[in-house]
């Protein structure tokens, strides 16, 4: 029987939750990297046992961990061996490309006070393994930039066309930092990649990362001087069903949006949501018009409305939303669900998963109709990914 492996990044380590196709009984492994912040883990679609993990610390900086056995054991990928001097390459060395040959002479972005500020690497928010090669993986980092490794995370090179395409000086950090948090690889067009940055917006390349353009038309953000500006929007997350790669769904700071033309134009689909603030958004694995969000009260109160944790589902691609509550807390719930903390599996009856800042990981094995807590008391959940195993 097929099963699932849920990869959970938390404030104090990584946890791996496994179950069979029924998704009723779970095995919990962890914490891996106890005591460290694990921003994100994700497995390769080519080799599901190859998993990349972002391990970070305010004390010790960024580390990259890699597993080749589905998360049982981990290693820091080795770059150059035993260097006599400081290494030119290393698995945790993310250097912004400012070379004349490939980079741009761009060195600053907008700071909180409106002045320009140098780019400074802080951490990896998101890994996105290639759809075609287990050794190729993309990293979205803070301060916002996109890096790629083609040697299994032993070394990294920036795709500088994004940071240098022209609008970079207008990007600015949100409250969580200036992070590149979303990376979507187009399965139909290998040269097409979507990314999203808080607070800059969404961007797309159609040539494998050489050139980029902002794709933010239709977004309206009243918290920036020009609400319809080309960049500056605080996009929280973007999701796509691989069967229809031109259709994108977005949870913005406020507003839930969709695009039917690969991001060239966005339309608001908040409809009857009780609040359209939130962080996560995802799409059903087999129904491209079925979308999930977790409404959060507001940008100043990051918890569910009225203390009731709810997922909302639209089966019509937006605008018409239904409340999903069976199995979710009915009262006194004041957790948040962070932007990378929702995922869907590929089983026939699509499972939906999300994790909370209160340490719960919920699963719905029936597309959202009913929910169960797999675990209740993990450290605050930063990210949730799921692998469907055959």
């Amino acid at each position, binding site marked *: 029987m097929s099963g699932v492996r849920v990869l959970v990044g938390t404030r104090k380590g990584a946890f791996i939750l496994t179950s069979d196709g029924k998704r009723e009984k779970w095995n919990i492994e962890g914490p891996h990297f106890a005591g460290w912040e694990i921003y994100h883990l994700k497995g390769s679609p080519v080799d599901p046992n190859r998993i990349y993990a972002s391990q970070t*610390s*305010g004390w010790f*900086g960024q580390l990259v961990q890699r597993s080749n056995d589905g998360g049982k054991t981990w290693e*820091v990928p*080795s*770059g150059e061996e035993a260097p006599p001097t*400081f*290494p030119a390459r*290393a698995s*945790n060395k993310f250097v912004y490309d400012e070379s004349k040959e490939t980079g741009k002479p761009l060195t600053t972005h907008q700071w909180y006070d409106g002045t320009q500020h140098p780019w400074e690497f802080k951490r990896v928010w998101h890994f996105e393994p290639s759809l075609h090669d287990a050794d190729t993986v993309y990293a979205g980092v803070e301060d916002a930039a996109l890096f790629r490794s083609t040697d299994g995370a032993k070394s990294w090179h920036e795709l500088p066309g994004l940071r240098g395409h022209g609008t970079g000086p207008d990007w600015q950090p949100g409250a969580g930092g200036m992070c590149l948090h979303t990376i979507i690889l187009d399965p139909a067009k290998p040269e097409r990649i979507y990314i999203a940055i808080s607070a800059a917006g969404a961007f797309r390349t159609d040539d494998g990362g050489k050139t980029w353009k902002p794709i933010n038309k239709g977004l309206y953000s009243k918290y920036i001087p020009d609400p319809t500006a080309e960049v500056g929007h605080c996009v929280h997350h973007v999701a796509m069903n691989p069967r229809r790669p031109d259709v994108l769904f977005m949870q913005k700071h406020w507003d839930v949006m969709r695009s039917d033309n690969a991001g060239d134009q966005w339309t608001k689909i908040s409809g009857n949501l009780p609040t359209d603030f939130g962080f996560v958004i995802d799409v059903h694995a087999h129904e491209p018009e079925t979308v999930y969000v977790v409404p959060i009260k507001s940008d100043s109160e990051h918890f569910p409305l009225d203390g009731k944790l709810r997922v909302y589902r639209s089966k019509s691609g937006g605008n018409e939303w239904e409340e999903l509550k069976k199995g979710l807390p009915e009262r006194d719930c004041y957790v948040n669900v962070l932007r990378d903390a929702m995922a869907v599996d590929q089983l026939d009856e699509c499972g939906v998963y999300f994790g909370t800042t209160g340490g719960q990981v919920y699963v719905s094995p029936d597309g959202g109709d009913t929910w169960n807590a797999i675990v209740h008391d993990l450290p605050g959940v930063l990210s949730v990914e799921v692998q469907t195993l055959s």
Partner: protein
Amino acid sequence: MIRVVLPAHLRNLAKTGEEVQLEIAGPVTQRSVLDALEARYPMLRGTIRDHLTQQRRPFLRFFACEEDWSHEEPDALLPEAVAKGEEPLLIVGAIAGG
């Protein structure tokens, strides 16, 4: 033989004990000790000092012989007791918590 005491997280990362011992040829300085430490334990690269600037990470300190050596130049000689292996170089993480 130079002795270096690591904070708990870096011990776990390097899969070693509290104290590691390193052979260093030439002057015993912060730089030469960290070079030797990272050569022995490559997974520690970037965790104690920045990859590019080689500056000490802000929340770490270097103590030796009951003195704070954090703000000394990387190529300054460490105390003779450290060079002789009588005292360890302590790499200490800032205290934080709630």
